[in-house]
């Protein structure tokens, strides 16, 4: 019994602060919904020549079809209807759209991680690469992706590449950067003594890479992967915006804004946020397990 209360207390210790902030956010959200949607409700009442009481006003602001800001429970209801109540193969299912975005995210993330690691190895082992490539790696991230994404989609479409790959390409573009920068730092993490030690054993560069540099870089890699996967998701959604609103969470956002379906926009947004949080949490879990097994958890 005491161990169970202790466990509960531990969970509360972790979840308490997060839940508190969540409660505050929900309260702010509700208050904002009332404030923002009140004008429309009053307008409607004026045209019907009635005067709303305060409680009527509040209940109206939370049940409009196309509110300026939908209330949290409206979004939750919409998410429930479009996930649980719809078949996953339906084009109105958020799970179906979510999967389309997720698959592009994961593919782009895999490409981006591979590219980032390759660049990092090149930068760490070759001064020429360090001097020539590194500035371009940084410059690449100063280009607004929102402006470039439609061009990438259109150009790739013109040469016959469509569907998953163009979106994955944009995800890769956003996710290779944190991995490259993190891995450069990680591969340079071994101190002079450890490198000297390898030298006393006449180890080759390849040997010190596999036995020393790569294992030493793991904490840096995981920190980068967490940023990289969130960036990948943003990339995939941005990549879906100019595709003529066919499929994916990005398409849901765009379609929602075309038709003023604010509830649909917000439910797609919340789903994207939940997806991103789950992906980051998943990598965090793998990180914890790996670093614990490597004795590197500080």
């Amino acid at each position, binding site marked *: 019994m005491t161990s169970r209360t202790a466990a509960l207390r531990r969970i509360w210790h972790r979840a308490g602060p997060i839940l508190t902030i969540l409660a505050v956010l929900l309260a702010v959200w509700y208050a904002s919904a009332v404030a923002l949607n009140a004008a429309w409700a009053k307008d409607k009442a004026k045209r019907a020549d009635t005067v709303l009481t305060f409680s009527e006003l509040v209940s109206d602001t939370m049940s409009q079809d196309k509110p300026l800001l939908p209330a949290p429970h409206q979004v939750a209801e919409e998410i429930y209807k479009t996930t649980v109540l719809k078949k996953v193969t339906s084009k109105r299912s958020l799970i179906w759209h979510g999967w389309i975005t997720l698959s592009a995210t994961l593919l782009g993330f895999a490409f981006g991680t591979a590219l980032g690691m390759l660049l990092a190895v090149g930068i760490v082992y070759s001064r020429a690469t360090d001097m020539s490539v590194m500035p371009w790696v940084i410059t690449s991230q100063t280009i607004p992706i929102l402006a470039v994404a439609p061009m990438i989609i259109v150009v790739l479409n013109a040469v016959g590449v469509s569907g998953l790959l163009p979106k994955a390409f944009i995800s890769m573009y956003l996710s290779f950067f944190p991995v490259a920068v993190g891995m450069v730092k990680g591969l340079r993490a071994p101190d002079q003594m450890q490198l*000297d030690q390898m030298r006393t*054993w006449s180890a080759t560069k390849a040997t010190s890479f596999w*036995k*020393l540099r790569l294992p030493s870089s793991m904490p840096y890699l995981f920190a980068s992967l967490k940023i990289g996967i969130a960036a990948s998701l943003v990339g995939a959604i941005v990549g879906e915006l100019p595709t003529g609103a066919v499929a994916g969470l990005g398409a849901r956002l765009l379609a929602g804004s075309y038709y003023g379906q604010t509830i649909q926009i917000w439910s797609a947004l919340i789903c994207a946020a939940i997806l991103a949080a789950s992906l980051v949490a998943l990598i965090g879990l793998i990180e914890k397990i790996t670093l614990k097994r*490597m*004795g590197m958890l500080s």
Partner: protein
Amino acid sequence: MSEAVISAKDLSLTFETNDGPVHALKDINLDINKGDFVSFIGPSGCGKTTFLRCMADLETPTGGTITVNGMSAAEARMKRAYGYVFQAAGLYPWRTIGGNIRLPLEIMGFNKSEQSKRVTDVLELVELAGFEKKFPWQLSGGMQQRASIARALAFDADILLMDEPFGALDEIVRDHLNEQLLQLWARTEKTIGFVTHSIPEAVFLSTKIVVMSPRPGRIADVIESTLPRDRTLDIRESQEFADIAHRVREGLRAGHAYD
């Protein structure tokens, strides 16, 4: 017993810095014979560590010559002529103690059964038998340093170079490790180069004490110890020990170590 395994002739090393050249080593002449236990002592900046690093081909001298086992230092390094123990144990946290000792053996291409045999042997040598499967964080600082010595011994180099290996440990642990190191030296008949800044440690361990002084880094005195090779901690109470320690101190004073 008098062939020189390490021989330095007019060895110099100058670092070019923004404030002008720094003479880390200047005209060093020294022979280290097979089976010797040689300590290098002096204030910081006297070049004792730099000298050891020259033997290990971790620094490249700018003048003179140094030979190790009759070869250049670089060739000796490639032939894995020495084991090097650094100030910090530098064990990899993701490898067990056994795994850490196996590391140089893997790099040098020993086969699996030979690796296991050697790991068991050297762990016994440093009195860490039974700790093979433990991780570094499960061991005390002194035990970690013993494991790092085991790692340097594992591939059976004739020469052991040690750069202040016990510098970060407390005196009680240090005394114990010094005694163990002497036993290990007696059993393995290795030639040992040992950098320290502790006078009692240098006198207790060495057959030859090289006193160095800074600016430029040079040898102030070479003291051949008259103590028997087989010694215990009690010897530190003897008059002979005090006399040698006194001479080391004189050498340090002559080299302006106390200025």
